[in-house]
């Protein structure tokens, strides 16, 4: 059957919308420092703000944007003009997070933290998914099948974060990145900066560094696309969890929240769909 005609569980994409928008709304609500930090720390406008001539607005307006963003996400979750409110969330999130990321930007660099990119990318694709409006408080379950290509677009968007990291490593350093010495050096640097003794112990074991570097590249460049294969999704998910836990433990690079949390919304949707929607269909 033509890939673009293949269907999946009818309400899957609508359910994904609900789970993801609620998760993002909760994450934002629990982190109000996103509102105040840009006004307490040194701020340099991100490159796109400079290009568009966007200057920093005052904190009161930032609180308003924050409140509106959470409201838009919650309205999207319950299905009130979902497509439009998600589109509005995209615009507000771009402004809100762009402002916050100004505190992580050095004057001499264009780089900023990237652990919020996936939230933006998943929000951007959602208004364009035809069945995203399924499951609405206004209309109930709509008779519009979710399609395989919609699911694959979500999974391939999640995969960009990992493929991007792996590709950049190979593009900059080639296979030499995985020679074990690079990971050893990264761990040593962490130890020197923060005194992380676990980084020190791992750095002292060259063989472990060599094996882990190779596994990192394999996971990021190849294995991540296992998300598209039926029997491998959960294996990849668990591997990603272990990967992020390890980078947090050994390198103080904490990506379980919000980055991995947002990836996890797809898997939360799988579980909820299996428990509450697929069972219903069987009974009927």
């Amino acid at each position, binding site marked *: 059957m033509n890939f*673009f005609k293949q269907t999946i569980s009818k309400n899957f994409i609508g359910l994904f919308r609900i789970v993801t928008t609620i998760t993002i709304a909760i994450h934002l609500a629990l982190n109000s420092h996103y509102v105040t930090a840009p006004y307490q720390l*040194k701020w340099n406008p*991100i*490159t*796109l703000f400079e290009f568009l001539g966007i200057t920093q607005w005052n904190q009161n307006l930032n609180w308003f944007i924050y409140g509106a963003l959470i409201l838009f996400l919650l309205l999207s979750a319950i299905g009130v003009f979902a497509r439009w409110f998600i589109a509005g969330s995209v615009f507000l999130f771009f402004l809100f*997070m*762009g402002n916050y*990321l100004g505190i*992580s930007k*050095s004057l*001499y*660099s*264009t*780089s*900023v*933290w*990237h652990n919020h*990119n996936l939230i933006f*990318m998943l929000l951007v*694709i959602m208004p*364009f*998914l*035809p069945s995203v409006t399924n499951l609405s408080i206004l209309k109930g379950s709509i008779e519009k099948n979710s*399609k395989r*290509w919609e699911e*694959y*677009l979500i999974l*391939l*968007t999640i995969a*960009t*974060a990992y*493929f*991007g*990291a792996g*590709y*950049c*490593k190979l*593009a*900059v*350093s*080639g296979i*030499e*990145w995985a*020679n074990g*010495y*690079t990971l*050893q*050096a*990264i761990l*040593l*640097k962490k*130890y*020197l*900066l*923060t*005194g992380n003794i676990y980084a*020190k*112990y791992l*750095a*002292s074991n060259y063989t472990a560094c060599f094996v882990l570097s190779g596994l990192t590249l394999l996971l990021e460049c190849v294995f991540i696309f296992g998300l598209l294969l039926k029997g491998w999704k959960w294996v990849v998910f668990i591997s990603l969890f272990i990967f992020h836990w390890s980078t947090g433990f050994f390198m103080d690079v904490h990506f379980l929240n919000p980055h991995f949390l947002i990836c996890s919304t797809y898997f939360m949707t799988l579980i909820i769909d299996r428990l509450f929607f697929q069972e219903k269909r069987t009974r009927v």
Partner: protein
Amino acid sequence: MVQEQRFNILKHVEKFIFFGFLLLFYGAIILRIEHWPFTDWGVFTYSYKPEQVFVFDLALKQIGHETKDQFLEKIGISAVGFNSQVTRSLYKKNQRETDRIVRAVFDQPKFRELAKNCPCEVLLIKKKVESIEASKISINHEVVKTYEFL
């Protein structure tokens, strides 16, 4: 007939959405576009040699007391961020910017709390790995500049 035409257009729209987004996201990766909201996945991309690793940190030197380093995280300043800013400014030989970065730490209330009642010297130090033997790592500390904090 009209419905059939609409259906045909819809098919193409779906393909356009699918491939369009993939081209946008993966194209940004291939082209290394690293500005928000696109990727900045290019962290930890450089290959390093362990013996060439060095970092910049601050140390508090007080007469009669042990010199204290690795305190930046304790006062809410990212050690990683401090190191990358100082590395960049020293690489560009911008001593004024280096002084500004260090003095910005002095303005933090938690630093003032840490260094209160202490005629301290604040040392900008360069830490480098000297040797690794079994699980013992020996570190070399080199003072780059001394700042008075009264």
